[in-house]
């Protein structure tokens, strides 16, 4: 089975399970938060960020503005039978974290966010007065 690849800690973030002979450094690395993959795009209205955060429910999502930064955090939770031991784990941390610095033309007070099936969508509108205006060239 895939056991040969890696026997690691439980996916839930419960006490780490260490295979004999495994270097302790590897365990430490497992504690590092996961950087969720994101798509980011901009249109006339503002910037939209979409992040994959499977296993995060609404009450375990922490989205906040700290100074000029947007911080996205989430805690993974899934049902795990008691005494389960990990046979294989691609996902070795139970925390997602990533931050982005915003710029002044964005209206941080009007950020909207939604979470569905582990996908977070954050819409950051631009200040109305700063949205690009098309400048018409007058014909003579």
């Amino acid at each position, binding site marked *: 089975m895939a056991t*040969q690849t890696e026997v690691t800690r439980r*996916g839930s973030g419960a006490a780490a399970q260490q295979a004999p002979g495994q270097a302790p450094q590897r365990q430490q690395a497992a504690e590092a938060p996961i950087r969720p993959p994101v*798509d980011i795009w901009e249109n006339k209205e503002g910037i939209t960020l979409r992040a*994959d955060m*499977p*296993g*995060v*429910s609404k009450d375990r999502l922490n989205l906040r503005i700290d100074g000029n930064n947007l911080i996205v955090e989430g805690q993974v939770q899934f049902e795990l039978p008691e005494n*389960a031991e990990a046979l294989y784990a*691609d996902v070795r941390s139970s925390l997602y974290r990533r931050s982005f610095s915003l710029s002044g033309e964005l209206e941080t007070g009007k950020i909207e966010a939604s979470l569905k099936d582990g996908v977070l969508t954050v819409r950051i509108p631009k200040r109305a007065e700063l949205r690009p205006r098309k400048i018409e060239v007058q014909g003579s």
Partner: protein
Amino acid sequence: MFGIPSNPPSSVFDELWRLQQEVDELFGSWGSPLGIRSQPRGSFPGVNVGQTPERVDVYLFAPGIDPKSLEISIQQNLLVVSGKRDLAAEEEANYYRQERFSGEFRRVISLPEDVDPERVQAKYTDGIVQIGVQRRESARPRQIQIQ
């Protein structure tokens, strides 16, 4: 050239992350052979497998998919999951990052030999597909009474 960094500062972290992945790949395969059907870390969807004496649970980290589009099959102890996640690009938008997986995927997971392919359950919650497979009774550890 001209002392101007050609990349935004965040790419330094991208680089470190990539490096970490490579080191992971290198040392992860040290000493113990790679599963013949294993895929590199970062493949979509991520897979975790946990076991107890009674059951084996497979977790697929597959956010934003339609669970009806998933095909899950099990033959003896080989679990095959395939599906797709098509991300349509927004119109009239400029993309800065497109890191999320889009397209078809397929993962093959070999489970312990004693799983019972007749007793499988699957559900989808918060972007995680959980597939629970019961193990055969005969394979479970049993307490032996001394007469």
